[in-house]
């Protein structure tokens, strides 16, 4: 069954108008019939009331004088009213007084023999109307009247009404159908036209078609809106078409670009692969063991051949493991991770010395240089391990050798000191007695003897000086005092006092800066200044000696300079002058033991400084030495 909403507009309009007329008509008829019923009932009641009044009035005397015959006579005229089927007059006590029945055969059949009702009232029963009315005389009730009327007349009347209504209804429906069939075209035709237009457009895809606007009502507005819509669609269609054309060109261009891009990418890929190959080869063939591990979890991600060789495990055994297995430490995972993180973040690019453990539990010393790199968004740590086990062994050996050396050196120094100290006593004896011999037996033992004794005395005194210098030299290492704040200016002053005769003799000019106060051994610094100044005077040129003592601070040390205008030193001898017993000149030309500058070197070195010379022959010499601000190594 087709639902109403699916009907065509044509049908809808016709049915709606028919439905409306039917409803209107039904409503009118129903109200009319109801009105009729009500009116009819009222009329009936009124009519019966009038009858009752007349009968009552006419039967007053009959009741008073107890004359039922007369009362019945008053009821007789009811014969002219066929709808009155029963009537009765009752006495005051409710007993029947006079009766009337339309059909004598059933007389009294329905008429009550006594009445209880003593008031005016009426009621509609199934098919009858029953009315009770008091009979009054001089304001006194003297009896009752009962009238029963048949309502069939009303029903017949109503039936007739119904027939008329149905007839009118059919007629009205026919009329409504005829009229609406004609009029519906006014509404449906423009809509159907719109529908046809829309179908046309959608089938042919021809957006130039337009609906004709026939009226100025809502349908006209709809048609206008429809046309506007089609206008817009047409414009859009056109735009779409041109956009599509433009798009094709764009696609072509873009394809070309993409092709180029793909070519470039291919080249890049080849280059990348080559680079990857290179890197892989570098990685695999590196002498250093390289591990790549996840920086957060510590999982080993990759390693090279050298790594497998270092640990003695295959790649399979290493990759996927925690890097802790590389190390012999028995820390827990957390502790290890913490240490590891510390190294990874703070010590990046620093060399960490640690140990690794091989599969067969051999412990090897390694040096790790780790760096964090980004690998596909993941932070990984790449560590290059270098096996330094051999180097460590060598270092150990060297250290041992050094210690050995230092010990023997110390022994030697001790020996030198003891030797030179103990040598002084017999030497002094040789010197003093040979001098005595020379004085007492001068010219007594012959000319040659005097000369020989002179050689002995000279040799002994030279030996004494030599031993003295050696003692000083060895004392620098063995008999040094602890460092104390030392005013270098006053030490220099003291040195100049000690060297006073020599300065005066050579008429030397000493120029000096203000010198600082530093932690130092003041006896040795005095020795240092004396040696350097006496050397400057000793190796003077023909000019009057001028000696400049200057100083300047440089970062953590003071640089001192003692410059003279003496004979100078050729550059090839610059190193040799600080070596013990090395002399550049004959003893006869410049006296000295060849120990002086060696002592200077030892003193400076003991204070943690350096000593060197800057000089050219004939242009004087400048000796530099440094003293650290915080004093030398003890």
């Amino acid at each position, binding site marked *: 069954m087709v639902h109403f909403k699916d009907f065509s507009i044509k049908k809808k309009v016709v049915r709606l108008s028919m439905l409306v007329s039917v409803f209107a008509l039904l409503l009118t008829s129903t109200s009319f019939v109801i009105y009729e019923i009500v009116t009819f009932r009222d009329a009936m009641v009124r009519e019966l009331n009038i009858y009752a009044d007349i009968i009552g009035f006419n039967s007053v*005397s009959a009741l008073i*004088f107890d*004359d039922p015959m007369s009362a019945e006579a008053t009821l007789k005229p009811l014969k002219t009213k066929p709808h009155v089927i029963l009537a009765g007059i009752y006495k005051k*006590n*409710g007993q029947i007084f006079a009766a009337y029945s339309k059909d004598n055969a059933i007389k009294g059949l329905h008429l009550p023999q*006594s009445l*209880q009702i003593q008031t005016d009232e009426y009621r509609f029963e199934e098919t009858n109307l029953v009315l009770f009315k008091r009979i009054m005389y001089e304001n006194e009730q003297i009896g009752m009247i009962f009238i029963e009327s048949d309502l069939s007349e009303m029903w017949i009347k109503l039936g007739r009404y119904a027939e008329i209504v149905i007839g009118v209804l059919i007629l009205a429906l026919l009329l409504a159908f005829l009229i609406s069939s004609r009029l519906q075209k006014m509404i449906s035709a423009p809509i159907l036209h719109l529908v046809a237009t829309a179908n046309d457009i959608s089938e042919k895809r021809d957006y130039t078609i337009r609906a004709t606007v026939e009226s100025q009502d809502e349908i006209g507005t709809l048609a206008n809106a429809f046309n506007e819509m089609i206008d817009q669609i047409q414009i859009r269609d056109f735009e779409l078409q041109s956009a599509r054309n433009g798009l094709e060109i764009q696609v072509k261009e873009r394809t070309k670009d993409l092709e180029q891009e793909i070519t470039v990418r291919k080249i890049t890929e080849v280059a990348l692969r080559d680079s990857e190959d290179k890197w892989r080869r570098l990685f695999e063939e590196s002498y250093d063991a390289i591990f790549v591990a996840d920086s957060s979890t510590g999982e080993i991600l990759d390693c090279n051949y050298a790594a497998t060789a270092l640990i003695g495990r295959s790649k399979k055994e290493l990759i996927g493991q925690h890097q802790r297995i590389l190390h012999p430490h028995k820390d827990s995972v957390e502790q290890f991770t913490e240490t590891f993180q510390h190294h990874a973040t703070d010590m990046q690019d620093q060399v960490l010395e640690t140990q690794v453990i091989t599969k067969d539990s051999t412990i090897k010393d390694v040096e790790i240089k780790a760096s964090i790199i980004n690998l596909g968004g993941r932070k990984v740590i790449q560590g290059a391990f270098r096996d330094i086990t051999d180097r460590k062994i060598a270092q150990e050996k060297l250290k041992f050798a050094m210690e050995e050396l230092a010990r023997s050196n110390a022994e030697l120094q001790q020996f030198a000191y003891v030797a030179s100290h103990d040598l002084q006593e017999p030497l002094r004896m040789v010197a003093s007695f040979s001098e005595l011999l020379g004085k007492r037996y001068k010219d007594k033992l012959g000319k040659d003897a005097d000369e020989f004794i002179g050689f002995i005395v000279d040799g002994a005194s030279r030996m004494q000086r030599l031993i003295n210098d050696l003692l000083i030299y060895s004392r620098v290492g063995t008999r040094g005092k602890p460092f104390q704040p030392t005013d270098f200016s006053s030490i220099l002053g003291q040195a100049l006092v000690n060297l006073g005769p020599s300065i005066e003799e050579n008429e030397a000019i000493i120029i000096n800066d203000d010198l600082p106060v530093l932690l130092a051994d003041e006896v040795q610094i005095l020795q240092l200044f004396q040696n350097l100044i006496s050397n400057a005077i000793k190796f003077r040129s023909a000019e009057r000696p001028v000696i400049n003592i200057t100083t300047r601070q440089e970062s953590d040390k003071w640089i001192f300079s003692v410059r003279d205008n003496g004979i100078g030193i050729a550059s090839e001898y610059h190193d040799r002058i600080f070596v013990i017993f090395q002399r550049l000149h004959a003893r006869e030309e410049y006296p000295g033991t060849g120990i002086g500058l060696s002592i200077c070197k030892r003193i400076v070195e003991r204070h943690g400084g350096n000593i060197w010379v800057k000089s050219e022959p004939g242009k004087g010499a400048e000796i530099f030495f440094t003293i650290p601000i915080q004093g030398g190594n003890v």
Partner: protein
Amino acid sequence: MTKFIKAFFKYGLIIALIFSVCLSYSNFTFAEEGQPTEAQVKAAFIYNFGKFVEWPADRMGGKYFVIGVYNDDDFAQVLTEIVSGKFLHEKPILIKQFSRIEDITGCHILFVGYSAKDYLAELLNRAYKSPILMVGDMQDFANRGGMINFRMVGNYMRFEINVNAVQKTGLKMSSQLLKLAIVIK
């Protein structure tokens, strides 16, 4: 529903019937025991005649509505009982007994029994003048010029009215009354 109503009506009627029969004994205005006596019926008729008759205005000036009884003490007694406390034409009813014709005056209705049959002419003469509605209880009373006369028809108490006599007095009598009467001309 209708069945129920019908049944109710049916039984209700029966009950009402029984009830009304019971009532009819206690409520009966006329009698103390059983059916009313003939005198009582007649007394009631006389009272009711008063309702259907109009007297000239000059006869209605008095304080009472007076019903006279000529030479019948028993009936006067019954009549007094019947009309006691009742009104006619808005006046209390007064019963007067007359034993002499000359005394008859000032009454609206006069009842004459059989004993008055010999003095009818004189009585009627007085009645026409006054006018008085004379009610008799004797044969041929109406024929002889009386206005209303009692007469038994079967078991029913009926009455005759002499229309000419009534017209002669100038009293106006309701057609309702005439309708019930056996009219004598």
